[in-house]
């Protein structure tokens, strides 16, 4: 059996039916991680094979779990008890998780074998995984290009077949943009659908954990495991988790596809334009109705994000003071110096930039003009989206402007890097779910991504459409 080519669901079935052992499968992926030169993985856990062996025994004794014996990679900001979680930062280089995050616990309860932690932009701040203290991750399809970010390690790992699934986190596109750049599938669920307990906080009011997989069905299957309320996270939703797999029907007849006026405007002249138009055409040809909708302030979601996210980051990163979490500057002589020197040595350039920006928008004299205004704008965007979603079931838009850019191409220009997130940020500001799936190719033959966005808690609709496009859209995706 060719382990690399099996889907996550097929792997799980093969292990459950004892056609493969968890040890064989885990060994295969662990070796791939160790041989890989993508720098997608920061650490392969030394107990992975042992855990796989234990799982094999449990399965032999009748254990059944949705991930029984399946290897999984987690992003470096997700806590797994006893393992390091460094957030791609020098500050947390030696930080060891004291407890399991809800998502890790849910996966372990279903029998997963967590094999490694994936590289990321420091504290999830970035769109290229060039901001990690532990070096740049390469795109799995073209090593001269960035994998996207901040979950670049997770997406590159899945595309490079280092695991059948990896978890990412998405604050402004950090799952979807790298998924698009590596030709894989990644979802940012509805805000609160997945618990953030045990995930190192960056911008708490807009971020979510989500799975990155090679295909849509695997993704839907994984979200069933991850979603649900946690008593440790009051922002996690109590609504029952539906079977996302059974929402995949293979039919999109009658689907109302929102075509956003503002997106039509924004895609003009971009590399992704043709592929975006082809996706709409494909959906129409297969029984969907295209409906004109508008979210007037769509373009302002980008600057809105760059006020709300740094403001929250400034507060969240206040806890890293040189007293409680691993790093303390050897130069510090008194308490004030412990704070200032530990932080100045421990944080990288982009993190410092965003802390400074956060303090700017929150500081006296600016608070109303920036932070309060951004929160009001967010409210306005939510109202505009409500109106749009009353007319359609999904909105289709590109994930990125084009193919992944070259390593180093945008590092000197933060604003140009921030604009990478134009199409992805809206879903975070609105708190709605959005998936990125590959559709079409760019100038160099690298995959482009298409995004399907739906109203809150409508992940089922998203998966149905995404699966339909994945199965039947290949011909139409050719640009």
């Amino acid at each position, binding site marked *: 059996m060719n382990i690399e080519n099996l889907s996550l669901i097929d792997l799980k079935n093969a292990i459950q039916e004892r056609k493969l052992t968890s040890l064989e499968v885990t060994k295969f992926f662990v070796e791939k991680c160790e041989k890989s030169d993508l720098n997608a993985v920061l650490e392969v856990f030394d107990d992975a094979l042992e855990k796989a062996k234990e799982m094999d025994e449990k399965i032999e004794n009748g254990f059944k779990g949705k991930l029984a014996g399946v290897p999984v990679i987690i992003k470096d900001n997700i806590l797994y008890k006893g393992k390091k979680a460094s957030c791609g930062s020098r500050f947390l280089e030696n930080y060891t998780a*004291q407890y399991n995050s809800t998502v890790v616990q849910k996966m372990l309860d279903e029998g997963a074998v967590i094999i490694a932690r994936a590289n990321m932009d420091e504290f999830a701040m970035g769109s290229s995984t060039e901001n990690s203290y532990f070096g740049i991750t390469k795109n799995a399809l073209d090593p001269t290009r960035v994998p996207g970010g901040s979950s670049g390690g997770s997406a590159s790992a899945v595309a490079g077949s280092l695991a059948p699934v990896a978890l990412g986190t998405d604050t402004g596109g950090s799952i979807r943009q790298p998924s698009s750049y590596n030709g894989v599938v990644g979802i940012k669920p509805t805000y609160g659908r997945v618990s953030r307990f045990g995930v190192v906080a960056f911008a708490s009011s807009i971020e979510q954990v989500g799975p990155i997989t090679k295909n849509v069905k695997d993704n839907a299957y994984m979200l069933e495991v991850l979603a649900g309320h946690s008593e440790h996270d009051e922002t996690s939703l109590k609504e029952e988790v539906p079977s996302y797999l059974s929402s995949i029907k293979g039919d999109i007849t009658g689907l109302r596809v929102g075509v956003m006026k503002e997106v039509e405007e924004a895609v003009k002249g971009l590399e992704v334009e043709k592929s975006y138009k082809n996706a709409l055409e494909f959906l129409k040809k297969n029984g969907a109705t295209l409906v004109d909708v508008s979210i007037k302030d769509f373009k302002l979601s980008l600057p*809105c994000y760059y006020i709300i996210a740094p403001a929250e980051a400034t507060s969240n990163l206040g806890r890293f003071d040189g007293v409680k979490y691993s790093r303390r500057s050897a130069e510090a002589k008194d308490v004030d110096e412990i704070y200032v020197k530990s932080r100045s040595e421990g944080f990288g350039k982009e993190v410092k*930039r965003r802390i400074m920006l956060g303090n700017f928008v929150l500081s006296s004299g600016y608070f109303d003009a920036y932070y309060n205004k951004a929160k009001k704008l967010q409210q306005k965007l939510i109202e505009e989206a409500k109106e749009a979603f009353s007319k359609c079931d999904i909105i289709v838009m590109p994930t990125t402007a084009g193919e992944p850019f070259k390593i180093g191409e945008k590092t000197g220009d933060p604003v140009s890097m921030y604009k990478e997130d134009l199409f992805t940020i809206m879903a975070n*500001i609105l708190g709605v779910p959005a998936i990125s799936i590959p559709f079409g190719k760019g100038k160099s033959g690298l995959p482009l991504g298409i995004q399907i966005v739906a109203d809150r808690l409508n992940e089922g609709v998203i998966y149905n459409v995404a699966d339909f496009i994945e199965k039947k859209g290949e011909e139409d995706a050719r640009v």
Partner: protein
Amino acid sequence: MNRTKITIEEVKRLAGLSALEFSEEELENFIPEFENIIALVDEVKNCDVGSQELKYTTHKLSECRPDVAKESLPQEEILLNSPKTKKGAFCVPKMLD
């Protein structure tokens, strides 16, 4: 629209609020970069959001869970990641003589 200008004093004030230190050169370099970022977020400052009051954000109102005493992490585990501890407490240099 005039671009918001940032002075070196402003950058120093923000560095103080951020508990970060920079060299003089870093501070100087920071100004044009920061002004570009401010120009981006100024689009929000200058946009029209009408006269609405701030009502809610993206999710439901937070609820409090029932106040039930449960076992938490043991003290030694809490202190595990601290760079310096003493007698079960986080340790910092003397603050008062």
